[in-house]
Structures are given as C-alpha cells and as structure tokens.
C-alpha cells in the first residue's frame, strides 16, 4: 500500500507532480462515471440481489479510490492505513451486528 518515502531530485519531483495531477483527474472522471453507472443501474430489469451487490461493490470501489489516492494512503506510511481501518472495521462490524440483531425474528415488534 505505501511506498517508501525516498527523496527524489527536483526534475523527478516535477514529473511525479505532473503524473499525480493526471492521476487525480483520471480518478475523478472514473468516480463520476461509476456514479452514473450506479444511477442507471437502479432502473435495469435485473434481480434485486444482483443490483444491490453491484451497488455495494461500486461504492466500495469509489470509497477505496478516494482514500488511497485523494487521501494519499497509497503514498503514506502503513500506520495511517491501519489507524483508519481500525475505525472502519469497528464501524462496519457494528453496522453488520445491529442489522443481524434487528433482522432476528425475536426483535420484530409485537402485534398491537
């Protein structure tokens, strides 16, 4: 995930910055296209589980592109990635656990 932080000469820095600019623009365009695909996807006549799976996968792809490129995790020390993923895993785990708990039959509201 993270590349070692070497100090490069000025000419290389310039080339690196140019490529970073291009990477950012390309990723932004890709994210816009994925968003468009998501919006079109909800109107397609496929099974619900296929569309839900596709939407979740596309959201995860967008999420990962933003955190690893725009938020520089790809170039930062792995500790930043670990730190963030601790929070992310705890949040995802809590969401999953709550959804499982409330989907159990015993948690359904009693008829009035």
């Amino acid at each position, binding site marked *: 995930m993270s590349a070692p932080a070497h100090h490069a000469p000025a000419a290389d820095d310039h080339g690196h910055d140019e490529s970073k600019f291009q990477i950012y623009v390309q990723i932004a365009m890709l994210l816009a296209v994925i968003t468009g695909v998501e919006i079109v996807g*909800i109107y397609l006549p496929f099974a619900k589980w296929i569309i839900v799976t596709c939407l979740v996968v596309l959201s995860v792809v967008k*999420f990962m592109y*933003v955190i690893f490129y725009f938020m520089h995790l790809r170039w930062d020390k792995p500790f930043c990635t670990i730190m963030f993923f601790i929070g992310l895993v705890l949040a995802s785990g*809590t969401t999953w656990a*709550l959804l499982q708990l409330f989907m159990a039959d015993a948690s359904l509201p009693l008829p009035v």
Partner: protein
Amino acid sequence: MSSHAGTIDHHHDPSTSTGIPNKKLLMWTFLASDCMFFGALISTHLIYRLHPMPDAPSPKNIFSIELTSFSTFILLMSSLMMALAVTAIQKGNLKSMRWSILTTIFFGSIFLGCQVYEFQEFIEVKKMTITNSMLGTTFFTLTGTHGTHVAIGVLWLILMYVRSFQPPEAGRNTAWFIRHGVHIAVIIGAILLAIFSTLALVHTLHTGENLGAFFGGHFAMLAGLLACIAAGIFLARPNGPVNFGEANAIDVESMGLYWHFVDIVWIVIFTAVYLLEYL
C-alpha cells in the same frame, strides 16, 4: 516540519517516533472515530427502513434522485479540487492552491445549497419533518449531521484561504486581524447570500412568477451579494510577502483529509439511503 536540503518530504517526518507528522496522525485518528459515529447513524437509518412503522411514508415518493445525483457529482468534483490544492501547496504554488481552495468552497457551497433546497422541499411540500415520522427522524439526523460536517469543512477552507494571506510577523499586527476578520465575514456573507438568492430564484421559476418581480423583491440581497464579491476580490489582491508556503502543506493536507472523508461518507449515504430505495 521536516526539512532536508531546502525541500520537504510530505509523507515522512523524522522528528516523530512514528515518522508521521503529528497533525496527520491526529486527523487519521479523528476520522477513524468519525467512521464509528456515522456507522451508528447509518445503522439506525437502515434498521428503521428494514422495519418501517405502520403508515410510514414511501421514500421513493419523497426523494429526488436527480438532485441527489447532482449533489454527489458536485462533491466528487470538490474532492478533486481539494486534492489539487494539496498538490499545489506541496509544490509551493500558492496561487494555484488559493484557486483550488476557492473552487472547493464553491462546490461545497453548491452542495449545501442543494441540501437546504432538499430539506425545504421535504418539509414544506412532502410534509416530512424530523418529528412526524421515523423515516424523517433518521433521515434528517443522518444527512443533517453530514451537512454539518460539510459546513464545518467549508468554514475550515475559508479560514485556510484567508490564512494564506497572513503577512510575516502578523502577531504584532492588529490591522491584519481586522482585515482578515472582514475577509472571512465577506466570504461567508457571499456564500449565504448566493445560496438564498439561488433558492429564491428557483422558487420564482417554480411558481411561474415574473423574473422582474424576483429582481425587484430581492434587490437588497443581490446588491449585498455583488458587494461581498467585490470586497472579496479587493481583499484578495497581492499585498506583499506572506507567511504561508510549502511548510504549511501539512495544514492543507489535514484539512484535505477531513474534506475527502466527508466525500466518502456521502458515497455510502448515497447508496445506502437513496439508491437502495429505488429497487
């Protein structure tokens, strides 16, 4: 900040035990905790959507996918401009950083304007408030908290933009504080007036009223907006050397991390709260 032979390594700080600049580490730790905060809000919304109350309103009849898609696109573009602002200041390009931050503020303000319009529509037209249904309670709490994060981000961007004009030895310069206090007030004023003018214009177009009546009825607001923009341009003109450069890249980067986080939270909300309702 670390410094080697006049250049700064923005991904490594040998002065800390982790090799990570303290401000960056602080921001990542905060964002990890904020993940759990939004995780709880999103879970609550999803739980009540999976077990809707009797007579619950249908979100499909309330939400506007066109408006939300537009907001999502705007927030993604703001993330691009924020990333470019960080790259610009890491190269010491102050002018480019200022333009990128201004564009990010512009996009962030559009997002906030869209959210104000959406909330207004839901409350006044669709009759969904934060108290009259569980959907309203969880929806407004979740998206309102996210909107508050965006508003804090816009305010932070404004402060950083104005900070980039700070002259050397500003600590003893009272005139600088007054000038930049006015600068901040002018930008916030311009954003608020632009949002409310646009909302009033949209309302006029919706109701089919005459545009002349709009300009007549909102003359003071539009004049105030123009005055704020003119004052903002006047205060942003070059005024000698500034105490802001490549060494401040970590401040801009920390702010950028916060802004991108707001974007990734919206990526999840857009799918979990809006898109899934249309299946």
